[in-house]
């Protein structure tokens, strides 16, 4: 056992602390090549990661960077810097600490590269950027340790894949580099250990005492939740009550739009003037920082937030966590509750607030799962190749490289350990020449192989373009929002370009908890003014929409088999009974389909329980099939449980639509033309470097210079259908947005047992679907038919049909038959 030096012992003593067993265990294993700690928040997890570093550096004499700390959140890096500075100052340790994120000013970045701090705190994207500089070897010289915080969160995304590739690079520069991962409770620690260690190094997993089980329940309100939507406005008085009874409450939402609406409503009802703040990723940085600072000072009684506060930031004395909306995933719920509460050894207290009637059922199912400790999770496949393509470009930006060495390095990352050489070479070829069947770019290759065999950039200026496009986070195109004033009013945050395009002057929407009026667009900035309206048009922030996990969906279906539901509130139980009366409840192992007329359209609901993405794909596949059968589908909308399809003609026999063989056979061709594939292509092509989001001259002139990524997709599909990018898109879509695995699982589960109910009107269970957002149009025959009707109507209504283009002799406003 390695003992603490007296200086540290004394410091611990003055704080009234003693070293936790897992901190000691981490210290004892400080020389392990890789080590994963799984511990609840509040257990001094971060200190466990840094203790060996502090001990090493306390002895003095280390030149340059010693420990690199990577966290998924910028805010977390700032927070850790604050926490580390305290012991360093109080013990007078000769240690320099600095952070670098996307927000760090240029001057400080330069200084950091020339004279790196001992402890360097950063994010995966900033690390990838640093690795792309030719002087990376200088900056990371003498690096001993890397601490990856919240690795469970990173391991779920491409950000983590990119980080592990950058670490592989660092490991080459610093062969003795030790890796430490810090993680919240997960269902499969060994998978994360494999992910973070240099392959094939071993990685020991240390499990800290998980602490007492959380005290978690569903918030009961006198008013029933609404049929649909995610606002949970009905719960405002009850939530305010809870805020009054607790010191500090975190109110989590699944999307930013929901957080905005809830905050707005909360504020309207806040008669006691309780200090309440809002925090989410679309808000302007200064606004976010103000809220964070107020939180740390303990000035706020509650914060309405999204995933941006999800991770282990030290928010002081939080004694209640409220989750608005169903948690979708039991593991994330447990992590969210566990992390927000920073009092070790005290049970976390949490309340679930279902936003609508269906979510009541899901919340009850989730509570049961938490009590049983049944965490859910789907294993992640091999490392995505779009990230690899970007990594190859990053390597080239750093300087000439040897392909064999790069391949060895890449396959030392756990996620890429099984990457074959041909697959690697295809990515290299793509980065170098575009990898097209038509060898068009011999003169203008991006990467050239020199006579000595090394690969380098043809045009050194390309390095800047590569660096401008580093990263794997796919935010939709957003526009800044500012208050209109003479010159540059106060920045408020960002909204999606698509939402901005739908605004006309005078429209109102919510941002940062206030209602603003759209004034106009100036130089890609949305200008607004304050507005006193009570009811805003709502900002359609994307937010993350998670799919309900397989396990949770199965629990919900299981609940539907019960003869009655004493565990559910009366209003929800009555709703389910009513559904049973007029139709039936979806049963495990069967597929319920309801058809009925509504709104002058033929409606069909499929209760597939395959999660949002899976149900979305099912909607795409079924409407495509219906189009072929001449049923004129117009569109569909999907939730985690069901897909609603509307069209011009009713479905009479659904069975042939659900033939798994036919669905699978057709999947590739069906997929090819659909919107999900195009969206996936856009994301992957951007990561792989085919689409450059940022160019040195971007966004200066009008937008006619850029063209839609859909055109690239269509062109590739037509002329080069076997191209690597299309292969990657298929891989990504199948495991991501398409989630075909869950459709297969569903079809196997039902095995032809389809119950089709043809009904005269909307059923209780189907009704909420009509209020769902995110309707997907089907671009088929029906659209051409409607477009022709609408155009004729508009021409007539506007009067243009009569006047026709003057000064013509005779009007000809009709297409020739």
């Amino acid at each position: 056992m390695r003992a603490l030096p007296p200086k540290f012992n004394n410091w611990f003593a003055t704080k009234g602390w003693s070293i936790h067993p897992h901190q000691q265990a981490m210290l004892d294993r400080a020389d392990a090549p890789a080590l994963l700690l799984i511990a609840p928040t509040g257990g001094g997890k971060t200190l466990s990661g840094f203790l060996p570093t502090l001990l090493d550096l306390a002895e003095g004499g280390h030149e340059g960077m010693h420990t690199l700390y990577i966290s998924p959140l910028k805010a977390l890096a700032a927070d850790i810097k604050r926490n580390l500075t305290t012991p360093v100052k109080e013990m007078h340790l000769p240690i320099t600490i600095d952070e670098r994120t996307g927000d760090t000013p240029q001057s400080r970045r330069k200084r950091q590269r020339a004279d790196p701090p001992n402890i360097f705190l950063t994010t995966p994207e900033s690390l990838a950027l640093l690795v792309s500089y030719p002087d990376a070897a200088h900056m990371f010289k003498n690096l001993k340790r890397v601490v990856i915080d919240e690795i469970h969160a990173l391991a779920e995304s491409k950000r983590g894949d990119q980080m592990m590739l950058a670490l592989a690079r660092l490991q080459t520069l610093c062969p003795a580099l030790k890796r430490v991962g810090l993680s919240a409770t997960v269902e499969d620690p060994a998978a994360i250990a494999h992910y973070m260690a240099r392959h094939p190094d071993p990685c020991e997993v240390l499990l800290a005492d998980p602490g007492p089980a959380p005290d978690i329940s569903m918030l009961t309100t006198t008013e029933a939740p609404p049929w649909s939507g995610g606002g949970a406005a009905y719960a405002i008085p009850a939530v305010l009550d809870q805020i009054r009874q607790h010191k500090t409450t975190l109110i989590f939402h699944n999307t930013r739009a929901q957080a905005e609406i809830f905050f707005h409503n909360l504020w309207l009802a806040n008669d006691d003037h309780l200090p309440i703040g809002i925090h989410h990723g679309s808000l302007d940085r200064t606004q976010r920082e103000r809220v964070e600072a107020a939180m740390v000072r303990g000035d706020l009684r509650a914060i309405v937030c999204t995933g941006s506060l999800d991770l282990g930031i030290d928010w002081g004395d939080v004694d209640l966590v409220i989750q608005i909306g169903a948690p979708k995933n039991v593991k994330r719920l447990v992590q969210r509750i566990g992390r927000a509460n920073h009092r070790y050894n005290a049970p976390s207290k949490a309340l679930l607030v279902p936003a609508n009637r269906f979510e009541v059922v899901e919340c009850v199912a989730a509570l049961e799962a938490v009590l049983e400790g049944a965490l859910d999770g789907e294993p992640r496949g091999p490392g995505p190749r779009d990230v690899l393509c970007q990594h190859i470009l990053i390597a080239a930006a750093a300087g000439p490289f040897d392909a064999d060495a790069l391949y060895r390095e890449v396959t030392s990352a756990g996620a890429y350990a099984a990457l074959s050489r041909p697959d690697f070479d295809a990515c290299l070829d793509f980065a170098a020449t575009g990898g097209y069947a038509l060898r068009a770019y011999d003169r203008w290759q991006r990467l050239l192989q020199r006579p000595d065999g090394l690969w380098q950039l043809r045009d050194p200026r390309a390095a800047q373009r590569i660096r401008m496009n580093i990263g794997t986070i796919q935010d939709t195109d957003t526009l800044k929002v500012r208050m209109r004033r003479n010159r540059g009013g106060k920045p408020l945050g960002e909204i999606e370009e698509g939402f901005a395009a739908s605004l006309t002057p005078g429209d109102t929407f919510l941002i940062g908890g206030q209602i603003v009026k759209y004034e106009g667009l100036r130089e890609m900035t949305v200008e607004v003014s304050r507005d006193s309206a009570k009811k805003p048009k709502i900002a359609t922030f994307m937010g993350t929409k998670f799919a309900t996990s397989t396990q949770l969906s199965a629990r919900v279906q299981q609940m539907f088999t019960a003869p009655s539901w004493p565990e559910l509130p009366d209003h929800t139980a009555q709703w389910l009974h009513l559904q049973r009366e007029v139709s039936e409840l979806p049963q495990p192992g069967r597929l319920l389909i309801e058809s009925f007329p509504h709104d002058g359209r033929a409606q069909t609901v499929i209760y597939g329980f395959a999660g949002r993405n899976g149900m979305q794909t099912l909607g795409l596949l079924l409407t495509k099939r219906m189009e072929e059968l001449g049923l004129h589908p117009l569109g569909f909308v999907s939730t985690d449980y069901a897909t609603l399809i509307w069209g011009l003609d009713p479905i009479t026999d659904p069975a042939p639509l659900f033939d798994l063989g036919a669905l699978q056979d057709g999947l590739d061709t069906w997929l090819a033309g659909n919107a999900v594939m195009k969206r996936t292509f856009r994301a992957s092509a951007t990561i792989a470097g085919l689409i450059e989001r940022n160019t040195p001259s971007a966004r200066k002139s009008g937008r006619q210079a850029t063209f839609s990524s859909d055109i690239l997709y269509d062109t590739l599909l037509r002329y080069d259908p076997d191209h690597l990018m299309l292969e990657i898109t298929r891989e990504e879509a199948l495991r991501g947005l398409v989630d075909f695995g869950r459709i297969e699982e569903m079809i196997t589960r039902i095995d032809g047992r389809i119950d089709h109910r043809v009904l005269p009107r909307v059923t209780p269970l189907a009704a909420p679907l009509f209020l769902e957002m995110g309707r997907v149009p089907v671009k088929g025959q029906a659209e051409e038919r409607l477009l022709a009707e609408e155009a004729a109507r508009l021409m007539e209504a506007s009067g243009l049909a009569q006047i026709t283009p003057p000064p013509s002799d005779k009007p000809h406003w009709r297409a020739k038959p």
Partner: protein
Amino acid sequence: MNGYQFSFASTHFTALGSGALYWAAQSLLCVSDLHLGKSERIARRGGATLPPYETRDTLTRLAADIALTEPDIVVCLGDSFDDLNAALALPEAERSWLARLQAGRRWIWIEGNHDPGPVELGGTHLRELNLAPLTFRHIAQKNARAEISGHYHPKASVQLGGRRISRPAFLVDSDRMIMPAYGTYTGGLCSTSPVLEALMLPATCAILTGATPIAIPLFRKVSS
């Protein structure tokens, strides 16, 4: 012929769904903003290596329109090449394809901002073309009348019960017509953008391209 028949400057035209304009009386086919060689230009400048098939795709569609209309005159209304070097770098197969399309008819290259000089390909190179009563030029001029131009890549959209359909479009008012971009790798500028609203008169029609070209009034606030 699948097209939209209309009158402009007392002259009868057909807007084809592809974005080409056909003038039957003159046996003239006009296309604008082909941007041939765009992918080559981007790669040359150190950018991404886009799928190098856009010239092939654009010519395929142009060949189909030529086969359909059998015109005596073809007018390419400027920005036919993404830059003059792109015209020089056109692969041999595509050069000879162009030559085959040019055979037996007048072919006019109007100069654009991307291709401001003559190209080493057959055909006549002009700054603008006057064919009474019409003037063909790349960029619309203020106060011009009976003018047909390109350059802006106009797009127009229509709201259809909660969905928005946006397509490249011909913009037509009593004085001018602005043609949509024909090239495969071209984006569009929304008809409601200030620059297009400033150019076009209040009573403007947009003819949406697509399977069946279709006209909509552009500025809804104006009625009879």
